[in-house]
C-alpha cells in the first residue's frame, strides 16, 4: 500500500517530467466530473452510514468504521464551497491514504458516484488555468483533455491538507465550545 504512494511526489511537475502514462479515477461531484490519481487510493466503499461528530465544520461529515479503523469522512463538495453532498444510491466513499508526520493517515472522501479508471498520456494533461475554474486553483493538479471536454485532476494532497483541515476543525470546535456554554 505504502509503496503505491511513491510516484506521486511532486504532483503535476512529476507528471509532466516523467513522460509516462498515469492512471486516474474519475468521479462525479455535484454533477461535475473530477479525476484524481489512483496511487493514494486504497479502496472505494459503498456508503453505509456514518457517525457524525458534533461541532464539526460542514466538510467533515463524520467517521466510519473500516474494519476496526476509525476513518474521518470529508465532503469534497463542501470543501470546494458548494452544497453538501446528499446521500443517494450511488454515493461512495473513496478511502485515501496520506502520509502525515511519518504516520499513515486514512481519510474518506464522499462523492456522488465513481465512474472509471482512465489511463492518461502526458500529452493529454494541460497546466491549470490561472483563473476561471470554480474551485481554488491550488487544488488543481492539471486539466485532463478528454476529446471534447476537460476534467479537473485534483491535487489530493492539497485538497486534503491535514494541517489545514485540522486548523479548520479546531476553529469550529472552539466557536462551538463557547457557543455551547
Amino acid at each position, binding site marked *: 500500500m505504502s509503496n503505491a504512494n511513491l510516484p506521486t511526489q511532486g504532483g503535476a511537475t512529476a507528471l509532466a517530467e516523467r513522460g509516462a502514462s498515469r492512471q486516474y479515477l474519475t468521479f462525479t461531484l455535484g454533477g461535475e466530473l473530477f479525476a484524481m490519481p489512483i496511487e493514494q487510493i486504497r479502496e472505494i466503499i459503498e456508503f453505509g*452510514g*456514518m*457517525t*457524525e*461528530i*458534533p*461541532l*464539526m465544520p460542514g466538510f*467533515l461529515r*463524520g*467517521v*466510519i*468504521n473500516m474494519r*476496526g*479503523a*476509525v476513518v*474521518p469522512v470529508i465532503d469534497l463538495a463542501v470543501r470546494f464551497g458548494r452544497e453538501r453532498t446528499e446521500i443517494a444510491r450511488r454515493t461512495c466513499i473513496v478511502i485515501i491514504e496520506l502520509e*502525515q*508526520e511519518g*504516520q499513515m*493517515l486514512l*481519510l474518506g472522501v464522499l462523492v456522488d458516484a465513481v465512474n472509471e479508471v482512465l489511463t492518461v498520456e502526458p500529452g493529454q494533461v494541460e497546466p491549470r488555468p490561472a483563473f476561471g475554474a470554480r474551485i481554488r486553483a491550488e487544488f488543481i493538479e492539471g486539466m485532463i483533455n478528454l476529446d471534447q471536454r476537460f476534467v479537473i485532476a485534483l491535487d489530493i494532497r492539497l485538497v486534503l491538507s*491535514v494541517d489545514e*483541515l*485540522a486548523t479548520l*476543525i*479546531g476553529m469550529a*470546535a*472552539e466557536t*462551538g*465550545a463557547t*457557543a*455551547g*456554554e
Partner: protein
Amino acid sequence: MARDALVQEARELLAAMENALLEIEAEGASPDAINAIFRAAHTIKGSAGLFAFDRIVGFTHIVESVLDRVRNGTQPLDEPLMALLLECSDYIAALVDAIEARREDIEPDPERRARLEDALNALLGAGAAPKAPVAVATAAPEAAGQVEVEGGESVSSDNWHLSLRFSPDVLRHGMDPMSFLRYLGTLGRIVHIVTLPDAMPPAEEFDAESCYLGFEIDFASEVDRQTIEGVFEFVREDSDIRILPPHGKVAEYISLIGALPEPAGRLGEILVKGGALTQAELEQVLAHQAAEPVPAKPIGTLLVEREVVPQAVVAAALTKQKQGEEKRAQEQKFIKVEVNKLDALIDLVGELVIAGAATNLLARKQKDPQFEEVSQALSTLVEQIRDAALTLRMVPIGEVFQRFPRVVRDISRELGKEIQLVVTGADTELDKSMVEKLSDPLMHIVRNAMDHGIESTAARVDAGKPAGGTLRLNAYHESGSIVIEVSDDGKGLDRERILKKGIERGLVQPDQVLSDSEVFRLIFEAGFSTAETVTNLSGRGVGMDVVRKNIEALRGEVEILSRAGQGTTVRIRLPLTLAIIDGFQVMVGESTFVIPLELVVECIDVGGHDTRHNIVKLRGEPLPFVRLRELFDLPPATGVRESLVVVQYGQHRAGVVVDRLMGEFQAVIKPLGLLFNQVRGISGSTILGDGRVALILDVPNLVQRASRAQAALAWQGQATSMPEQTGGNS
C-alpha cells in the same frame, strides 16, 4: 542472550549503580551500596565479555579495579571519586547505546574515555602503596558468639579456618583472588595463610589465564559467618570455599580434610601451623580418618555435605541461604517479552472484544436462550482475557522516577542550590506505553521546580525556611486514574505577575475574575514565561505548553496548586490504560456516546428536579451539569425523559444530561487521529457491537466546563441579583 537483552540488562545495572552512588552521597558509604556498585560494574563487564564487546570490557575493567580498592578499603570513596564514578557510569551508558545502535566498534568519545581512564589509572597508581586497611563494616558479631556446636568435640582454636580453592576460571571471569583476600583483611586479621600450589600443572601445560592456587587461612575476626561468606559471594558458585567457625567440631575438620584434594598429612600440618588445630587434635582427626577412610568423593556428595554442615552449625547462614533462594525463585517469575508482541496481543484482544460485542448483540436479537448463554460465557472469558492482557502492560512508575535522583543531583549542583528529592509511590502501576511519553514532561516540570520554584539558599534562610529545598515525586491511584505529583517547597507561583502577564498578552481581560487555578493554568499557554532570568535550564517560554500537550495527548490533565511562600504542586492525572476500558453507553437523539465507567458515580432521573441555571440539587448539594444536546448542538427532541449521569473526575463532580441510558459494555479505544487533536469534549471513539462508531466523552473537559459555568454563574450572581437562564446557545 540476545544483544537487546544485554543492552537492557546493562541499563538496569547502570541505574542500580547510579542509585547506589547517590545513596552513598546522601547517606555515606555502606558495604551494601559499595557491593552493589561493584556487582553492577562486574556483571556488565561479564556480559559484555560474552559478546566480545571489548570496548566496554576494557573500560569497565578499570572502573572495577578502582571499585575493588574502594571495597577493600585502600581507596577512600571521596567526593571527586564519586563524581568520577558517576561520569564513568554515563560513559558506560554511552558504550551501551553504541551497542544498541550496532556501532560497538566505534568509540563514542575517545577523548572523554582517555580522560576518564587517566583519572582512574591515577587512582590505581596512587593507591598501590599499602595503606592501613579500614574496617568497612563490623556487622553485629552475635552469630560468632552463638555458634552452636552440635555433637563431637570442639577444637580449641579461637580463629576461623578458611579453605579456599579458587576455580581455574576465576581470572577469566575478571576476578583476582588477591582482591578477595585483601577485602577479607579488612574484616579482621589474617593470622596465618598458606598458599597451595598443588594444582599447578607442569610448565608446558601452564595456562597463564587459569588460576591454580588454593589457600588455607586462619582468620581472627568478630564478624559473623554471613559476612565472611559475603566476601566470596562472587566466586562462591564455581569455587570451593569452606569456612569453619572458631571452636568448630572435630568432625568438621575430618570432613574438611577428607574433602580437599591435597594429602591429609600435609593439610594437617598446615592446620597445626596456623593454629586451627593443636597437634593432639590433629592426631585425633587423623586417627578418625584412618579408621574411616574417606576416598576422593564425587563432587556431588561433597556439595551435599557442605550444605549439611552449615545447617548444623549456624542458623544465620541458613537463613541467608534461604533468602538467596527466594530471591532466585522470584527472579524466575519474570520473563522478558518484546513490547511489539505485547502490543500485537492487545490489538487482537481489542478486536476480540469488538467481535464479542457483535456476537452478544446477535444473540440477544435471536432470542435463542442457548445461544445467549454461550455468548454470555464467551463475554465473561473475553473480559477476563482483556483484563489479564492489559495488566501485562502495567509497569511500576518507579521506572520513570528512577532517573530523577541523578537529575536532581546534577541540576542542584549546577544551580548551587541544596535540594533533596523524596520519592513516594514508586510502586504505583501504569501502562507501559505511557511511561515512555511521561518521561519528558516530568523532566521539564522537575527542572522548572528546581530552577524557579525552589529559592536560593540565602533567600530560603531569609524567609525562615530550612536552607535545603525539598522536591517530592509522588504517585497514587485514584478512581480509575493514576495521579503523579511533583511538589516543591519553594516560593510558589506569583499570582499577580502571571495575571499581569496574561493581561499583557491578551489571554485575560483586565476585568475578568479568575480563580487561582485558572490563573496558574495560564502558564501552560504557548510562549508564556514569567521567569526573570533566562537560565540554561528553563524560562525560555517553551515547555509548559508542550508539557500540557504531551499530557493531553495521553488523555490526561495537568493542574497546578500553589501557595505563595510555601511551594507549588504540579498534579498530572492520567487514565490507567490507553487501550480498552469499561464504557457506559448513553444516547442523545440518534447519537451514541460512551462515558468511561470508572468515572460514572450514579445515574438519576432529571424529571421533577429544579434544573435552572444548569445546576441541580442532589441530596442537598448543588451539582453543575451540561446538557449534551446543547453542548453538541444536536437536533432538539420532545417528550424524552432525560437522565442525568453523575461523573467524577479528581475532586470535581458534574452531571451530564442525556436522553437514554444504554448500559455497560467493553470499549476498545480508537483514537480519532491527527485531524481531531483540538476537539474538546470528545476524547476518542470506539466501535459498537453493530459496527457503528461511537464517541467517547472527554469527562475531564465536561466536568471542567460545568464547574466553570457554575463559577461564572456564582460570580454573576454576586454582581447582578439573578441572571437569566444560562447554558443555552440560543
